[in-house]
């Protein structure tokens, strides 16, 4: 479903080029759950951003299902994110002016794929029933991350990308949140790629990859 070949990305820092990715190859099947670890600055987040189309690669290809992401325009990449990708961030990045219910349904409504029954199921499974009228800053970090996961899965995406989704949570909450994510990913059948520093959490997924010196080790 996701196929990455010879992907490269270089940044400039203080006038010096920094080669973050130096030919990454990666395959991910539908329904597969993969953890990506690596030391700080190894390019994990950059790889995730390139797959999501948040940034453009310097070389190589990324293919998601039948679409070649690296050939898409800015608008095409936006459309891809809207329709086929779910994103979860460490900082949650919910919309503070909207209630939990509106945040949950937001992406699905924008994509024109709102499914009331599925959203209701998500609310139940994520345990958000009593929080729907609250605003993000009125709920805890763990609760906010559950809303973010719900928002990302509400469109029933082909691929769920998570960048340190448990980085801001305590260990017990982190395990709860990840367990929920695993269940929901299984329920939707989408692919799941998670960047994490925790080897313990990485071990709970189907496959564990490590990024080192810009390549998959």
């Amino acid at each position, binding site marked *: 479903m996701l196929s990455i070949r010879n992907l490269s990305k270089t940044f400039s820092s203080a006038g010096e080029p920094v080669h973050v990715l130096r030919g990454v190859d990666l395959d991910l099947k539908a329904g597969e759950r993969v953890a990506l670890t690596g030391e700080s600055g190894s390019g994990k987040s950059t790889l995730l951003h390139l797959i999501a189309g948040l940034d453009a690669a310097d070389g190589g290809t990324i293919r998601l299902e039948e679409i070649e992401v690296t050939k898409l325009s800015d608008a095409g990449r936006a459309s891809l994110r*809207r329709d086929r990708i779910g994103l979860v961030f460490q*900082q949650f990045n919910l*919309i503070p*002016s*909207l209630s939990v219910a509106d945040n949950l349904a*937001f992406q699905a409504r924008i994509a024109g794929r709102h499914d009331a029954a599925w959203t209701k199921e998500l609310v139940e499974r994520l345990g958000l029933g009593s929080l729907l009228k609250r605003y993000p800053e009125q709920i805890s970090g763990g609760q906010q991350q559950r809303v973010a996961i719900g928002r990302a899965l509400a469109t029933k995406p082909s691929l769920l990308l998570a960048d340190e989704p448990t980085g801001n949570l305590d260990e017990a909450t982190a395990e709860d949140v990840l367990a929920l994510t695993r269940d929901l990913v299984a329920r939707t059948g989408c692919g799941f790629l998670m960047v994490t520093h925790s080897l313990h959490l990485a071990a709970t997924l189907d496959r564990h990859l490590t990024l080192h010196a810009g390549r998959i080790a």
Partner: protein
Amino acid sequence: MRRALWILAVLLSHWRRHKMQFATLLIGLIAATALWSGVQAINQQARSAYDRAAATFGGVRTAMLVAPNAATFPQELFIKLRRAGWPVSPVLEGRVQINGRSLRLLGIEPVTLPADVGNAPRLGAADLSSFVAPPGQTLVARETLADLQEPEGAAPAISNGAELPPLRVQPQLAPDVLVVDIGVAQRLLSKPDQVSRLLIGQPRGKPMPLASVVGEQLQRVEPNAETELERLTDSFHLNLTAFGLLSFFVGLFIVNSAVGLAFEQRLPMLRTLRACGASARLVNTVLVVELVALALVAGLIGLVCGYFIAAALLPDVAASLRGLYGARIPGQLTLRPEWWLAGIGISVAGALVAAATSLIKAIRMPVLATAQPGAWQQRQRRWLILQSCAACAVFAVALLLLHYGQSLIAGFGVLAALMLGAALILPAFLDIILLVGQRVARGPLALWFWADSRQQLSGLSLALMALLLALAVNVGVSTMVDTFSRTFIGWLNGRLAADVYISASDNAQGVAIRSWLKDRSEVQGILSGGRAEAQIQGQSVELLGLPDHALYRERWPLLEAAPRAWTRLVPGNAAFISEQLSRRLNVRLGDVVEVPAPGGTWELDIVGIYADYGNPKGQLTVNVAALIRQFPQTPQTRIGLIVARENISGLIAALQKQFGLDDRSVADQATVRAESIRVFNRTFAVTSALNAFTLGVAGIALLTSLLTLANSRLPQLAPLWAIGITRPRLAAIELTKTLSVALFTALLAVPLGLLVAWCLIAIVNVKAFGWRLPFHVFPLQLIELVAVALLASLLAALLPVARLARMQPANLIKVFANER
């Protein structure tokens, strides 16, 4: 000390990384100081000019003796009083015409002139003999010399043919005043042995009681702290100060938003400094020092800008003051040291006031951050309720002032309270509108649009308040000026009854012209008028003499009239009174006004009240023949003619050829009308300039608020972009949001502005000028102002929105970077 410097260096490092915020802070302080100081410079200039006028050889600032029922009294009373130990000095006052220009002639007696008559120009011992000894001297201000187009030493002739003593410049004199020895004045004014008033100096011993020396022939008039001119111009300067204050507050709004944002962004820095061992007192002191230093720099720049603003506005202000009140202000700006000090002071004080909430937060800040107890909506609701309560209290004050206030200050108080209340309640109004929008929104983006606009409200509210106030003032003042303009033009059409106006150089020429006109077949009627001056209840009043002619009955507009008013005017014992004089003297139809005339008191029944817009002086209109009987010295130089339209230009050419009259001395109705309208428009030129300034500052406030908000909004916008909304679309939404709130604000400003206009027309104008105008609304003008507001908002929003549309993904991705 070193520790403090290190902390200052750390605090200043914030501005290096936030250059736009730094510029915003400085722009706010500079704008506030510049506009306030500019207005103060103009006020100071005008007031010193009034002082000059008031102090001209003992104006109203000196105690004096005057005749209760006559314009002049015999000189022998002066001699009697001097012998009785009274330190009095005689003054004779009158008006003379030089080349058709009317000037005030003051005759003084320099030997007895008290040394303490205000700050009047003194004559030195060397000058005294040349002033008194023939041919004497005529002291004039430099401006008067320039107006007369005569060199120093020239001896111009006045309208009766007599020559003035040679002109000599006396810099401290007020313009349009000629000062001569009293003997010369008595000869020039044909008032031998007559005196207008006696100035009273400091008595050495105890003089005999006044009544025992002169009986009831003279009465004492105590000095006034405020001159008539100052009283008249109070409203204008108050108006100017109000504009300055408004701009100052708008500038402080900018400072407040910049400092507030900088404080929020520097919170982690402040906490780190405290955590590293810097005491709270030291950190707070350095914060204040940093702010004061910035205010000093910005204040100095602001003062320089203020000087240029004042210099640019002064010609318009001088024209306005001359048009409205007949006051003459020198066109060159001179500034006192206290102006500079006050400007710096106001900049520092303004900065401290604008930053007060942030400084208090810094002082109370705990070292460790605590979680917010409530959501933004709860905080916003609390803030809106508090602000709305404050607005209601301010509206209540406005109502009380409207009901009980009598003075001009109370009128301005109503205006100020109205605008402050409206500004305070604006966020609540906008919140309700946005909430309704949120409730009816269907799509997710529409929902976000309204919800996010509501959340942005607290950050934008100060800028929107500034926009509301600037627009309301614009609507109010423009409506008032246009109402005035429409009324004035209608009134002018009625007042300009004759087809041709002639101003003869003297009575002899007047007689010759009238005699010549009688033989001209194209002249259908000759309307001879005249003007004299008198003092009524201490006020200078103009007496206008009109001939008895059907044309006046048909066209001359009267606001109120007794039955057969025009017929009752003919015998000479009745008068019409101008609206402003009727208010000042509290005179109504049927009342009697006593006018001190050379021959004794002239009693006039008031049979009509008329509008006399733009005339700073009160006026009484009487029959011209009666006027000449009572005031034999009245120049008979003004002539109006009734002529068929097609004969006007030929007649004017013939008059010019026959009598050597120039364009100023003979003009047709259209020319006089055009000139009057030109003077009228010039009178309000300063209003347009100030309107543009306030709107400009409000635009800057909006721009700076949007720029500072734009940086803090990335975390809210980046997730939307990540979800799949393109940058151009996000930019378009942001632009629409700004324009929407600006439109709502502009729409709310329209009724507020009309209310301001009503206050100006029905309260302030009546108290300031004495005339009440009918209220007109100009829909096109309102549409134009709303469009200007939207354009200003569009320009203000364009820069941050363009930056967002072109923002590199790398900047948006930073929001999601975990290793920040």
